[in-house]
């Protein structure tokens, strides 16, 4: 039975629904910036990835990066969204030290991508989350406040990097849904190669809009925006603390001020950003240094044809064709590289073994060594070989684990390891009979106890046979022979 949705802020008298909308900023995987040709590489020395255009010197002009347009369109297609063949770049005007031109080039009324949707798998069923739009915009530089007590240091490396801003409709209703949504977006973009979704490096961050309303009410409450949350965990925490704050305010008779807030990760609470002046009259107008962006339908169609199989489709196929559970499918499609690896392995190996070994054994190793599956020490070919050796009975599952360990260390293929270390399963019935009889002869008293009813001792006998055979005895045969001998 499926769980029911049950995220509410529950107070003495009321049940409050939490309404969430997300504005996700995803850095495009381009090598150079959106409107200039300097590098987007992360972590470089300050102000080295900066051109005259990035730092808004007099007379500098923007020229748009074709690759960024392609990634925005691809992402839009991945979100089942409308691609606008004609879009406009607007200037968003405000002053800040890390915004050298005093304006950010963004898209306001005519974004490149329109409405779309994303489907989430929640424990209580599938949930469709509407996408309002996606547009391209410049990132700002970085203001560093803690290197000096009186001054701020400005690094413009990031200034001008291409961002895709993905705006959701206010369809999300819980931190879990937000978690799922962000992960879904991330997966889609990683599949498409349009954004690497690396939240630690800031390639993916979100502004979270939160409001509350009594369960059953139709009208939306006043919302607050929590800016620049850069991890999913913090998003979840921020939502919960902000929702609670709003509920408290309303229940004590106060009004919610529509404002921008920051999430304090140490105090686990949101606080108001104090830019209280006629803040945020951005005076959007079309950037006169740029002409309207017009793309052809054929351009869009070509990109569509080149799209890889997207996560939802792949998941459906994995469940239907390979008989995986939704959970297993989710894991195996979470990255393109993982699904590719899986499909390679099952070309020659058993599906059940493959899914278990990848999800449990291989992932444990990759997590431990902090590796991506594309850098796996065990290749898909070698894993397939190992699994086939289990299927054919040449080694037991237990021995296979040992072999796997050695494969991780050496990268060698399993047959070689088995041969070198003499780990072949012992499946000769005559040999096994010898060992079993040997074990039983040594433990006559235990046989008596067993026959008297102590059934647990069966395991002891099996264990002793395994010990005697250095673990190589074929478990099935051992069972058959042991049962036969014990009957005697």
């Amino acid at each position, binding site marked *: 039975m499926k769980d029911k949705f049950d995220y509410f802020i529950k107070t003495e008298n009321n049940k409050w629904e939490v309404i969430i909308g997300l504005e996700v900023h995803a850095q495009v995987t381009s090598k150079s910036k959106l409107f200039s040709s300097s590098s987007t590489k992360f972590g470089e020395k300050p102000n080295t990835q*900066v*051109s005259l255009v990035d730092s808004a010197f007099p007379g500098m002009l923007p*020229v748009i990066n*074709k690759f960024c347009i392609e990634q925005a369109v691809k992402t839009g297609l991945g979100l089942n969204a409308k691609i606008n063949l004609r879009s406009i770049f607007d200037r968003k005007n405000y002053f800040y030290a890390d915004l050298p031109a005093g304006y950010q080039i963004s898209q306001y009324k005519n974004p490149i991508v329109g409405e779309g949707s994303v489907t989430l798998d929640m424990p209580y069923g599938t949930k469709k989350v509407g996408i309002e739009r996606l547009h391209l915009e410049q990132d700002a530089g970085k203001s560093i406040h803690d290197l000096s007590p009186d001054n701020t*240091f400005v690094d413009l490396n990031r200034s001008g990097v291409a961002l895709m801003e993905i705006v959701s409709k206010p369809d999300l209703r819980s931190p879990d849904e937000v978690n799922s949504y962000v992960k879904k977006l991330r997966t889609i973009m990683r599949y498409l190669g349009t954004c690497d979704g690396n939240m630690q490096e800031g390639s993916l961050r979100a502004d979270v809009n939160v409001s509350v309303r009594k369960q059953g009410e139709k009208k939306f409450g006043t919302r607050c925006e929590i800016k620049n949350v850069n991890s999913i965990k913090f998003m979840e925490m921020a939502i919960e603390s902000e929702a609670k704050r709003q509920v408290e305010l309303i229940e004590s008779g106060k009004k919610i001020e529509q404002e921008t807030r920051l999430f304090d990760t140490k105090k686990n609470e949101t606080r108001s950003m104090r830019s209280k002046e*006629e803040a945020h009259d951005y005076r959007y107008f079309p950037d006169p240094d740029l002409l309207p962006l017009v793309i052809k339908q054929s351009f869009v169609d070509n990109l569509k044809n080149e799209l890889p199989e997207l996560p939802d489709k792949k998941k459906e196929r994995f469940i239907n064709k390979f008989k995986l559970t939704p959970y297993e499918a989710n894991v195996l499609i979470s990255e393109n590289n993982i699904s590719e690896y899986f499909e390679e392995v099952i070309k020659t190996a058993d599906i059940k073994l493959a899914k278990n070994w990848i999800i449990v054994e291989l992932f444990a190793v990759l997590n431990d060594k902090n590796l991506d599956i594309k850098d796996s020490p065990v290749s898909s070919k070698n894993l397939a070989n190992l699994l086939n050796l289990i299927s054919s009975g040449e080694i037991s599952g237990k021995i296979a684990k040992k072999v796997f360990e050695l494969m991780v260390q050496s990268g060698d293929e399993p047959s070689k390891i088995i041969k070198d270390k003499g780990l072949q399963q012992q499946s000769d019935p005559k040999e096994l009979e010898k060992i079993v009889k040997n074990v039983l002869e040594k433990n006559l008293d235990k046989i008596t106890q067993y026959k008297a009813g102590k059934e647990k001792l069966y395991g002891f006998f099996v264990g002793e046979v395994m010990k005697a055979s250095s673990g190589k005895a074929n478990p099935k045969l051992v069972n058959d022979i042991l049962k036969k001998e014990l009957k005697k």
Partner: protein
Amino acid sequence: MPIDKNQVKKVAKLSRISLDDSKLESLSKDLVSILNFVEQLNKLDTNEIKPLTSIIDKSLDTRDDTVSDGQIKDQILKNSPEKNEDFFIVPKVVD
């Protein structure tokens, strides 16, 4: 009166230009006369007209995604009134 002194103050704040009282006075006068002048446009009915979005009849040219700029830190910082070897230096935003 198309604009009063308070509005001028707000606009000056938005434009990050400080105005003392006498400047505020004289600029307000000027702005009133300029805005009065441009009010004439209201005589025209432009409901059915689409605004001019670009003066040239062409759409945006694009460039390839290659890195061919940057790595000019010294040039970038050279003209800054306050800087160190690596950063621009500005007073803190009061918060």
